[in-house]
Structure formats: structure tokens, C-alpha cells
């Protein structure tokens, strides 16, 4: 049979494809619907939090930080309750990471505060002696793209039925109507922040990346 296959490239390719596709079908498909179900009471990310998640993705925080607490005593002691599947139901993409050069962040919102993050992102060494994490000073001047975050909320609502309210809908007009809410949420975070450039930007109706990022980190609980 194998000699015959080697002379018939078409059937050879079909054979290879069937053999390699098999595992994915058996492993991924059966639990698909179940694994997508949220835990009770899980809220979708706010637009500001989504913008913060975008900062997290843009600067590729998963290169050094996980968001997955494994069911070991050493991990639950250090980071809190182990992670369960339904907590991630609104995570597109999942951000578990694969390397902990820094600590896990899945429940960082339980034990770090807005001002801690502000100081830490400005100069990590000041708060954690010996830290090898770089400072992210550009988060204080770069402006977060809240419009794209809103577009993401609309998309997941329309395509995946993520439970957002009726005020989240497609189009420029809806976005302009919604934008003040995002700014309010950002201002509430910035109350605990001391960098003047953050407040200046907010006054102009812009949200610095650091504010969005902290909103996202505070949400991780």
C-alpha cells in the first residue's frame, strides 16, 4: 500500500491529512460548547478594560506573566483561588501565557491597587528591589485606543452574543453617545493617580494607556 501511495501524490496527501486532522477532532471538538460557558455572575469587560487588555496585548505582557493559577497549594497560597474554566469565557484571546519571568496576574486585582500599579509601571525597581521588569513610562504618554475597544465590544456582542447592554451598538453615532461613560470610568480610576500628564490628557477627553491598563489589572480578580 505504501509503495502505491508514494506513486499517487493525491491519495498520499489525503492520507496524510486524515491522519493529522484526527487528533484535533477528537481532542478539541467534544468539550467545545461546555468550555465556552461562563461562571455565574461573570460580567463582560467594560470598554475601558478592553482598551487596557489591548495595552496588555500590545506590549505583550504574556511574554513574562501568566494568568493561570494551577491547583497546587504553593500556587493558591501565593496567588489565591485556582483558576476555573468559566472565568475565561469572555477572554478573546486567552492570555494564560507560558512563562513566569514575573508573577501570575490572574487575581492581581485582589492585592494590588491603582497607585501601586502607577508607581510600579513608572519604575518597578522602586517598589520591588531586584526587579528585572522594564519601566513602561510610555504608557503615561501614549493614548489608549478606546474607539477600537468599543468596536471590539460591539463585535463580540454581535457575533458571539456577549451580554452587553443595548447602548453598545455599531456606528459612529452610538460610539459618540457612549464615549462619555468611558471617560467617567477612566476619571474614577485616575482619582488615585498622581502623574499630572494623566489628568491633563483626561481633561482633553483622552485616556492614557496607563489608566486603561490599570482598569484592566484591577478587574483581574
Amino acid at each position, binding site marked *: 500500500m505504501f509503495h502505491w501511495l508514494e506513486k499517487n501524490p493525491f491519495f498520499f496527501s489525503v492520507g496524510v491529512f486524515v491522519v493529522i*486532522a484526527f487528533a484535533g477532532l477528537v481532542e478539541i471538538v467534544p468539550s467545545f460548547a461546555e468550555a465556552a460557558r461562563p461562571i455565574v455572575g461573570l460580567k463582560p469587560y467594560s470598554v475601558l478594560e478592553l482598551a487596557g487588555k489591548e495595552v496588555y*496585548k500590545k506590549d505583550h505582557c504574556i511574554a513574562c506573566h501568566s494568568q*493561570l493559577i494551577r491547583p497546587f497549594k504553593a500556587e493558591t497560597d501565593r496567588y489565591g483561588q485556582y483558576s476555573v474554566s468559566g472565568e475565561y469565557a469572555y477572554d478573546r484571546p486567552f492570555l494564560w501565557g507560558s512563562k513566569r519571568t514575573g508573577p501570575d496576574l490572574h487575581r492581581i486585582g485582589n492585592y494590588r491597587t491603582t497607585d501601586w500599579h502607577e508607581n510600579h509601571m513608572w519604575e518597578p525597581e522602586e517598589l520591588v528591589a*531586584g526587579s528585572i521588569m522594564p519601566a513602561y513610562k510610555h504608557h503615561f504618554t501614549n493614548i489608549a485606543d478606546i474607539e477600537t475597544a468599543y468596536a471590539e465590544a460591539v463585535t463580540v456582542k454581535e457575533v458571539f452574543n456577549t451580554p452587553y447592554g443595548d447602548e453598545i451598538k455599531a456606528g459612529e453615532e452610538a460610539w459618540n453617545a457612549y464615549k462619555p461613560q468611558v471617560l467617567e470610568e477612566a476619571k474614577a480610576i485616575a482619582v488615585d493617580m498622581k502623574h499630572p500628564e494623566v489628568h491633563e490628557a483626561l481633561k482633553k477627553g483622552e485616556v492614557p494607556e496607563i489608566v486603561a491598563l490599570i482598569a484592566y489589572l484591577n478587574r483581574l480578580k
Partner: protein
Amino acid sequence: MQSNASLEYDYSVAKLFTYTTILFGFLGMLIGTLIASQLAFPELNYMFGEYGTFSRLRPLHTNIVIFGFTLSGVFATFYYVGQRVLKVSMAESPFLMTIGKIHFWLYFVGALVGVITLAMGFSASKEYAELEWPIDVVIVIVWVLWGVSIFGLIGIRREKALYISLWYYIACFLGIAMLYLFNNMEVPTYFVAGGIGSVMHSVSMYSGTNDALVQWWYGHNAVAFGFTVPIVAMVYYYLPKESGQAVYSYKLSLLSFWGLMFVYLWAGSHHLLWSTVPDWMQTMGSIFSVVLILPSWGSAINMLLTMKGEWNQLTENPLIKFMVLASTFYMLSTLEGPIQAIKSVNAIAHFTDWIPGHVHDGTLGWVSFMIMAALFHMAPRMFKREIFSKKLMETQFWLQTTAVVLYFTSMWIAGITQGMMWRAVDEYGNLMYSFIDTVTVLHPYYAIRALAGLLYLTGFVMFAYNMYKTITASKRLEEEPQFRSPMAA
């Protein structure tokens, strides 16, 4: 079908991909060395503002070495090996020639745009699938063009039976096509949201645990079909060619091929041990990872036994050294992987530096050694000149071998140290170390790893120089060498 002694193969596309292999190899390894140094010396994060931090550069490193260096190597060798084992020249078909050239240029432009967008921070943040959707579309087209080249050449072949290497190239083509398509399923937000926000942005079709499963089914098997399958294709062609020895066993190659195809895909979930993925999937991942030793070692042993009775070549020909050591590192790497996939070992190893350590004995010792050996072997045939310097090649070999050993030993120690410290408790059952203690302790190992990177990079520069001199200034050859590649002392 052996009457084609006069057949002139056309290497124009193979040559183009050879150049990009060297270019992306240098760039990727340069960034790799920089980010390795940043972990030892964090001040190095601030050289290029927001574009120079470890976190922004790390995806650049992985994408350039995977999709730049390795894929270029795969394409370069395919456009060389494909013609030769099928006994047809690209020059015979203007159509395939055009497809090949478009394939190259679209790939090159796509790769450059990909590098730039990643540096700017456009990222889907799924490992090795970071590129945003417009670039994904380009990649799919590039891949289809490669498929046209493969099956086009097969369509006009004179040699009816497909040689082993081609099995692996076909598998690489099909495997990556399937994995890439499914993992990069994403919805561009701009269109759904009625034209607001960034055009580049998209959301993954899968969420949470499902996304993790699809991602590591992809991530693990992108390694399989990008770093293993096409590299096995290379060793099956170049080692017998360079040594003048026939492949040891046809049956063993058959067993290894079909075994690898069937088993590899199951093992992806070993990246998700102790996660929220269902237990039975984790167990499947563990078991199949261990089974995977069989087909992997099957290929490696087949290669080593090909040298049976001819081991003297190892001392005489540095190219044989590269390929034999590559096969040996392949064995090391495919034994280490299954060990890490055992659940109790994984509990310590996961999230630590042992994982990048494992990746790099495979990529530096196996993938990169094999690609460089392949390029060295092709150079005298494509450019009709002898290899510029054997001495330089020898030095490069020992420098890079030292580098790989330093790399994985330091990362073994770093990973196991950190894994043990995370879980260490005192006599009352309290955690003994704060997280930062487990970071500062790694400094010496990070420094050793950075040194290893520097040594390997230096070796790669020697390789690039040797290739450059071979192409431009070496002694011309009257006729094509049959087996051993000619080289000046």
C-alpha cells in the same frame, strides 16, 4: 529515468530564499541575544524607547526565527531538493517559475511588513500567531503559492515515486495550512462595528479554555510541522547526499513518517497540564508525548545508522559533523520534551526557564544546524564554486556547539531552581520565598545564557561570511560534485 544527465536544474528561487535565510537568521538571532541579555542586565531595555523592551521584542525574535529564518530555509531547500528528487527542472515550466518568483517576493514583502507591525505593537497576542489579520491573509496566499509549486512540480515529474523528503515537505505544507487557518480564525472589528476603530484589530473566534486548546494544538504542532517535519525532510536528503551513503532502512523511515504524522498532533495539550482544560485531554497529551519518542528516535536512528561503517567522515568533513550532531540534538530534544510532559515533572517545569531551554536545544542544535548544513551543501551546486573555508566552518561548529550546551545547561539549572523555589515551604507550611527571590537567584544563569547567545550569533556571522565568500570569491568548479562538498582549507 536516469537518462537525464544533461538536465540543468534552475536554482533562481532557491537562491533567493537562501539569501533571506541568512538575513532573517542573523536578525532573529541578534534580537534573541539582545533579549537574553536584557534578562541578565535590565538596563538594556531602554535602547529604543517603547520599541526596545523585552516584551515588545520577544515576539519579534520568535516570529523572525520561525517565519523568517526557518521557513526561508524550508523553501530554499524545497526549491533545490524538489527538482532533484523529481527529476524535473523549474526551467521547463515558465508557469512554475513565475509562481516560484511570486511566492518569494510576496513572502519577503509580507515578512517585512509583519516585522514592522509587530514592532509597532499590532499583535493578536497568541504565541507564534501574533500577526494581525491582514498579514495572516498574505501568509495564506504565500502558503497556497508554495502548494502550487509543490504539486505543480510533482505534476510534471519524471521520477514516479516520491522520495522520503517529499513526504515530509507535503506533510509540512498540509499540517501548517490546517493549523494556521484554524488558529487564526478571527473577526475584524472594524467591519462589524460599522467602520469605527482600527482596521487592523480583530478578536479571536474562540474564547478562554477553547482558545487555549486551539492555540496549543497550533503552537505545539507549528513546532512539529515547522521545526521537525521539514527538517527531517532535509536530513533525509542532505545526509545521504553529502556522505554518499544510502538511507539505512526504508521500513524505518516508513514507520517513523506515519507514526510521527499520527502521534504528533495529540501531544499539543501537554502545554496545558494542570490548566482548566479537561483532565482526559491533559492525560492524552502526556501519553502521546511519551509515545512520540518512538517515531522521533526512529528518524534520528535511521540517520545515524546511515553513517554505519563511514564514521571516519565525521572527522574529515565538518558538514557531516553538523548533520550528525543535529540528529543527536534531535534525539536529546525529543527525549526531553516527553519528560517535561509527564504531569509531575511538568508541575515543576511549566512556566520556568527549562521550557525555553528545551526549545533552544531543538532549534539551535537541530533546526539551525541542519539548515546551515543544507545551505553549505547547496552552495557549491547552486553557485558552482567550492566552499570558501573549511577552517572557518570547523571553528563555527565548535563555537556553536559550546553555545548550545551552555544554553541548555544554564536553563536546566535556572528552571529547576525556580520551579523548586516556588513550591518550597518552611516547617510550618508557609511559602519560603517571595517571588522576587526566585528571580534574583537566576541572574548568573541568565548571564551564561546571554553569553551562549552571543557565541551562537558569532558562529552565525561566520556562517554568513563563509557563504558570502563562497558565492562571490571562491574557486570556480568545473563540474558538479557528486557527494562530498568541495571546500578550501
